[in-house]
């Protein structure tokens, strides 16, 4: 199998994930975009690991680590999202501006 094939698939996933993170305003959907990007990185790790025929299996072991970290990230992220929802009945990211410097103060 040409090495380029998994790499291009990973690029596609990463691009889609990046668009999702930047264009969505629902916090859970943004987390989904992050997951896609992490998966792209994982796919690249596994593909390069297979290409190098690495005896330490670094690609696959690192992928396992990334999956673990991603699971922890989602757990914490969703806890935060639910906390935010409980406080303000909305998880739209662009409405969370309480700590934003106020526009008028910035202009004056």
């Amino acid at each position, binding site marked *: 199998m040409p090495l380029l094939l998994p790499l291009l698939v990973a*690029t596609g996933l990463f691009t889609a994930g990046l668009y999702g993170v930047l264009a969505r305003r629902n916090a859970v959907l943004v987390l989904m975009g992050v997951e896609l990007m992490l998966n792209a990185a994982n796919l690249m790790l596994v593909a390069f690991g297979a*290409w190098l025929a690495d005896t330490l299996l670094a690609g696959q072991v690192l992928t396992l680590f990334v999956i673990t970290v991603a699971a922890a990230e989602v*757990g914490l992220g969703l806890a935060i999202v639910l906390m935010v929802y409980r406080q303000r009945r909305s998880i739209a990211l662009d409405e969370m501006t309480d700590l934003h410097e106020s526009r008028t103060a910035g202009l004056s």
Partner: protein
Amino acid sequence: MNAAVTVVFALLGVLAVGSALLVVTTRQVVHAALWLVVALGAVAGCYLLLRAEFVAWVQVLVYVGAVVVLLLFALMLTKAPIGVSEDLDAGLAQRVVAAMVALATGALLVTVLVDGFSGEVIDQGATGGAPAIGASVFRSWVLPFEVLSVLLLAALVGAIVLSRRDVPGAGAADSVAGGR
């Protein structure tokens, strides 16, 4: 055999990228999570074809079995109407910029990868069965593994603290929210 593997991989890749695009563009919020299942499953299939059997099943167990269920859970606890929701995406300008940034990143990656690795071939000999992975994790990668366990513990504690309601001080925040 090898050509067949390549063709199947290409099909899975198209499936993964296609459903990933649907994840980030669909206007029905639960459908996004369901397309995410398809995308992650296709990636697991890609791992299988790359002979990373153990990683593929971890992907299914952790991502499809737990992460997506957690995401669906969060969607339903917040707001998941049936049908189209209009408030999932940012404004048109931001979306255009986002698409441009994403496409530029993608173009950059494709250029670098094609330049660096075109013509390279993956030899299908290497295997990633459970014994090999286990030996590798507990011999060469023990320290990162232990650090990871501490990280997981921290995440666990953090999640519990975040979702507790009987912590002193949290009640004040709740009453502020009630007053809004």
